[in-house]
């Protein structure tokens, strides 16, 4: 059951990702990005990372993208004008080169990464909130705290920028 579901949601993620670039209207693009996030959350879930899947949904789809949509609607951003005069070389070679690039990357990953490091469906069980919290606060305490400080600095920066506008 895992593989068909993986293929389905991987396809949805890729389709939404392509749609994100193809769409001309910002709201449609933002919605496609939400589709990518949702599909990724399902992929996390399939791999056994339940907490990460829920966090992906709550934080990215539920909070960050809402702000994106909010700003787009507030500014009432219109559709993007498409320029017709694309270089002929780019139009002809773009997709084949992209496929080649992705093919090389996936080939290299398959060759370089030992198979013991790859994750199999159902092989990982430490994705619950308790396990994740324990890992975060023991093995990865320093990166975790560093990230919190980084976010704090970003918040302070936002406050400073916001105050300047009021004065």
């Amino acid at each position, binding site marked *: 059951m895992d593989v068909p579901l993986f293929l389905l949601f991987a396809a949805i993620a890729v389709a939404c990702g392509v749609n994100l670039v193809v769409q001309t209207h910002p709201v449609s693009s933002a919605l496609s990005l*939400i589709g990518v996030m949702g599909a990724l959350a399902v992929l996390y879930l399939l791999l056994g990372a339940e907490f990460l899947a*829920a966090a992906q949904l*709550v934080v990215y*789809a*539920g*909070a960050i993208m*809402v702000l994106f*949509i909010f700003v787009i*609607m507030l500014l009432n951003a219109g559709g993007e004008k498409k320029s017709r005069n694309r270089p002929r070389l780019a139009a002809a070679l773009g997709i084949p080169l992209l496929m080649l690039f992705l093919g090389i990357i996936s080939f290299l990953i398959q060759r370089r990464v030992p198979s013991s490091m790859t994750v199999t469906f159902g092989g990982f069980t430490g994705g*619950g909130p308790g396990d994740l919290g324990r890992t975060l606060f023991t093995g990865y305490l320093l990166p975790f705290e560093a990230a919190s400080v980084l976010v704090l600095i970003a918040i302070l920066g936002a406050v400073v920028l916001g105050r300047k506008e009021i004065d």
Partner: protein
Amino acid sequence: MNFFLLSLLKAGLVAAVLLTTLAYLQWVERKVIAHIQLRMGPSRVGPHGLLQPLADVVKLLTKEDLLPPHVNKFLYVLAPFLAVSLALTSIAVIPFGPEIEIFGVRTEMGLTDLNIGILFLLGISSLGVYAVALAGWSSNNKYSLLGALRSSAQMVSYELPLALAVVGPLLLANTLSLRGIAEQQAGSILNWSILQMPAPQLLGFLVFAIAGFAETNRIPFDLPEAENELVAGFHTEYSSMKFASFFMAEYANIVTICCLATVLFLGGWHPVFPASMGSGYVPVLVFLAAAGIALYHGVNPARPKDRITLPAAGVVFAVVAGLFLVPVLKPVLVPLFWFGAKAGTMMFVFIWVRGTLPRFRYDQLMRFAWGWLFPVAMANLLATGLLVALWAK
């Protein structure tokens, strides 16, 4: 019975009960508001207007489904669909009762139990913003757009205190599974999260309830659809079943928030005092009392037609009271009674507040969320964390 068939059966049962509750919650709301305002409320369709929800459904189904010009068709249709499907999904993780054995089949009362149940619920409810935002934006109407903007800002702001208030019971129960949280509160009322030592969550419950009002766009936080400013807010342009979908979603969200408050703070399906002290007979007494009152008013009728309807209601109440004494049904019905009683009380409070309070001004709404609710929720979380950590030592 195999897992698939059982799940299908339970899903059908929960969906049927939920949809009936939605329809009749609206009837209850109209009746209660009417009595608060010294009116009669719906009284024409059936006895005491009891068939009004059915009439409303038929009316909404047969209305013309209008598609205004210059709307973004895909998003315009997607929004009500999203609203109702997300609102109905969240009921799937709510536990209604303990694990029971009925006719030789063991099963949990509730559709499913995720180890991230509460996060799932928060995630689904946070996606609900999109339905409102997209509906308002795609309608090509300035009132709709204003409603949608207000709504997104409001729901994002109030989600924060809501989530912070939820963490309190999680700390006490030490699990994210809703069933686990409910099971931690067994015993008496003193074990419910709202009163549980070491950190009673009274403050958290208050913050949760207030943020819940705002999340469901109810008075006093119904600015997204403020009638006297925005016509009908984000769903101004919707008609027929699409309008009904938004309506249904709103009521489904109320039901979910009330069930969630019951599970997190009010002890889920556990009775007020333990079963060893006879709490299993409370439902029988309650329904017998209701039957007695109905019969008394049937014998001394205020209106001629009460001579028939009230004794009939009394008989129904007496039969329900009898059902609680049947040994096979008792383990199923008693937890359901307590769960329903608590969730029903919460729903009544929702309606009561609507009948009592006026609407906030927009700046008051935002100041209240960020200046009061958020600090209070944060302080509650810190105090709870400290007390739980000290108690554990």
